[in-house]
């Protein structure tokens, strides 16, 4: 395609820049004269941008607009939930998690429960959630490259996998907060500038109300929440709310960022800033969805709505202007894949490197770096192959399922672990298994079948509303049954979690 030069330039620029920073980014040095350790701790604003950069994935960049175009206003719950998850994180988890000193979720389980078994279960879950979350990133990348340069979908998946792998194994961009922070602002710009232009075009065209446009479904159904669907629609909505509100705290690549905060107070400030930044970003995708209903209604009929954001500029603004905007959006989408996929790959590779590939097998044991690299290959190859093999289920939907698994497992662990002294290792493991297996079965069923009739697809397609309470209940009941085994030093650990660092207190 000749008119795709701008998109190609955007993709290549993003990929090359990412690799260059990953390779040479650590070579900045400073001398004592302008070096003050205190002034170099990561400020909450910067850290929040970095969290935003890593968190805003393909689902946010492409998926939300597609869902809004196809299903209407109900789907605004996705961006609302993805933002509000940080409110729950702020109130219940942020500061105590930081004070626990844990770097990853398995670390927290081990520190709180003093149990290697609970740690192992958490490690498995981190890998499972990471793979499930990576799957739509790779699928989305295939879509974007097909749209941008007409390549078959597997090319995009392969390119993103290779770039991520090269980036992660060569040193990683995780370490550089500044780069991740830049990613947020780049994605915001890539979405904001075209949106402003397109809204101007829309106003110039007479500002047709999207609800009145001739799109899929009648106007009432599109613009009114639960316009159709009745009890099932209500269930799906509440289930989605539970999954997204409670799932954020269980995402492996988000949690590790909190370690960078110097103390619990900074962790809270960071979370607050994240709320603001995400709120700002999520104003934009619904604009594309609404404009899509006016200008790109035929996309919804074709079913390939995930490319809406990329198509829209060309449809509304034929010529060079549209090409440039498409190029900017493609670059932004590619940046979204790379940053989220890198963060997830590092989180998964870290767990695999520590607990699987770094173990001693017979007489042989891989060194730390090699184990991490082998782990990274595994972390990328498994979801990559799955992305190639599985059919297109919708980027935002699969991410929604990853949230459901996180909400059914790590949310009960964190909330009860932080706020309930009597949680025992046995209770935690039982709850993690119930939540993990329940939601995991639902995910497998949803990815492997195509049935859409009756309650089964509804309950299994959006499992959080039953799997989260089941996990909570199991943890509480089993903990009460094994209460005698609760540890004496759990009390001491709770004191550490809940007292501000400034309080002079013996925490040993």
């Amino acid at each position, binding site marked *: 395609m000749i008119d795709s030069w701008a998109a190609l330039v955007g993709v290549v620029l993003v990929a090359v820049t990412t690799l260059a920073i990953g390779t040479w980014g650590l070579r900045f040095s*400073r001398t*004592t004269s302008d070096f003050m*350790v205190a002034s170099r*701790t*990561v400020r909450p604003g910067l850290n929040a941008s970095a969290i935003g950069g890593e968190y805003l994935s393909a689902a946010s960049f492409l998926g939300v607009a597609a869902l809004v175009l196809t299903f209407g206003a109900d789907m605004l719950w996705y961006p609302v939930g993805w933002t509000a998850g940080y409110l729950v994180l702020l109130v219940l988890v942020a500061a105590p998690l930081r004070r626990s*000193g844990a770097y990853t979720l398995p*670390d927290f389980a081990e520190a709180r429960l003093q149990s290697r078994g609970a740690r192992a279960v958490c490690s498995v879950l981190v890998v499972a959630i990471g793979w499930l979350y990576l799957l739509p990133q790779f699928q989305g990348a295939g879509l974007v490259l097909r749209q941008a340069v007409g390549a078959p979908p597997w090319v995009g998946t392969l390119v993103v996998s290779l770039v991520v792998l090269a980036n992660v194994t060569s040193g990683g961009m995780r*370490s550089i907060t500044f780069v991740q922070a830049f990613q947020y602002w780049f994605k915001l710009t890539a979405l904001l500038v075209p949106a402003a232009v397109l809204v101007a075009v829309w106003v110039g065209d007479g500002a047709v109300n999207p609800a009145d446009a001739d799109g899929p479904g009648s106007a009432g159904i599109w613009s009114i929440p639960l316009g159709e669907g009745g009890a099932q629609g209500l269930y799906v909505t509440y289930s989605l709310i539970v999954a997204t509100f409670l799932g954020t705290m269980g995402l492996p690549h988000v949690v590790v960022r909190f370690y960078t*905060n110097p103390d619990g107070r900074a962790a809270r400030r960071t979370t607050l800033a994240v709320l603001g930044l995400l709120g700002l970003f999520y104003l934009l995708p619904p604009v594309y969805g609404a404009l899509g209903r006016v200008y790109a209604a035929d996309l919804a009929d074709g079913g390939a709505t995930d490319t809406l954001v990329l198509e829209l500029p060309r449809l509304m603004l034929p010529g060079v202007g549209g090409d440039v905007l498409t190029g900017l959006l493609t670059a932004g989408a590619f940046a979204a894949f790379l940053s989220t996929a890198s963060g997830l790959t590092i989180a998964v590779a870290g767990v695999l490197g520590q607990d699987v590939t770094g173990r001693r097998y017979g007489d042989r044991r891989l060194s730390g770096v090699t184990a991490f690299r082998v782990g990274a290959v595994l972390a990328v190859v498994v979801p990559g192959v799955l992305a190639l093999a599985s059919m297109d289920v919708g980027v935002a939907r699969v991410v929604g399922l990853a949230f459901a698994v996180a909400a059914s497992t790590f949310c009960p662990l964190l909330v009860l672990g932080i706020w309930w002294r009597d949680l025992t290792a046995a209770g935690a493991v039982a709850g993690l298994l119930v939540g993990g297996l329940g939601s995991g079965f639902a995910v497998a069923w949803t990815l492997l079948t195509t049935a859409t009739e009756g309650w089964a697809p509804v309950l299994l397609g959006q499992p959080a509303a039953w799997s989260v309470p089941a996990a909570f209940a199991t943890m509480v009941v089993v903990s009460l049954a094994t209460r005698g085994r609760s540890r004496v030093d759990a009390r001491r650990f709770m004191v550490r979690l809940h007292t501000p660092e400034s309080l002079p207190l013996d925490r*040993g």
Partner: protein
Amino acid sequence: MSAWPGFLRRTPLGTEADRATFHTLHTASLASPALRQGLTGASAAQAVPHLRALLGSPAVALTDTAGLLAWDGDGSHHAGHVPALIGPAVEHGSTRTADASDLPCEDPTCPVRHAIATPLVVEDRIVGVLMAFAPQPSAGLVLATHEVAQWVSGQLELAELDAQRTRAMEAEVRALRAQISPHFIYNSLGAIASFVRTDPDRARELLLEFADFTRYSFRSHGEFTTLAEELRSIERYLILEQARFGDRLRVTLQVAPEVLPVTVPFLCIQPLAENAVRHGLGALDGVGRLSIVARDLDHECLIEVEDNGVGEDPERVRRALAGDGSLDSVGLGNVDARLRNAFGDDYGLVVETAPGAGTKVIVRVPKFAPGVHA
């Protein structure tokens, strides 16, 4: 290695005598972890059932020099007689026996009719008594009790060694705290004094740095601190040294902000920086170049302290890490031991050096380790 399984298959469990030996060794190994914690009520309670299995007597007791710590087996109503029974053994430091007259009992079926008391000796000091009880006197049991007591004494001696090693390490940390050399204090104050007239503001700043540096280094609480605190203290130290040496000391610090919250043992990097300054100043061209790098490696943090000094024979460094104090490197072995103690043997110091090639000390620290917090 591969010959072992085949050998085991041919003669699965050895002869009768072999099996008895294996059984005894296994029972002893069960008692050993508790005894390695020293002789306390809790450790005695854990060890005494295994000791009874070793001796095969109806009841066994462990005591300290004052009274009973733990009793296992029948006839525990005799526990009240124990203080009187151990008296002679403790006094004479040798095995004593007692008969039914010393163990008055209403119960005709009670198996506790005779007692054997053998003192437990650690470094020529009697710390407790092992007692075995039996219905009949038996020379075999006396002999067995004596041998088991010898073995228990050996385990307790090892426990004592463990405790001594920990105490020695703590003492060394205290020494590190107080090791800021008189020369450093004298020279720093001298350097500050030289600025008092020419640059009073700088003199004041340096004096404040000096005050903060000593406050951190003399801090008396806490085994751990954050990397940020440790680096801040090193920074102050380097500012003071630079005030003294000016251009003869060039410092590069390269620190990833992400690793500043990492928990590290107190004073585990500062001694390395002091060594590097000293080595660097002895460099051939007279200009000491020192670089400190802290990098983020996902779940670990990597700290490198490098100088351009004359270097060192690797064999001597190896000996210093093994505990030989003759090397002119402050606390290298101590830092290594404390890192291993806190994070496990995977996290010891790595020293890259050769004569004439400078020295680079590499410290790896995990971001999270159970039980380690500042």
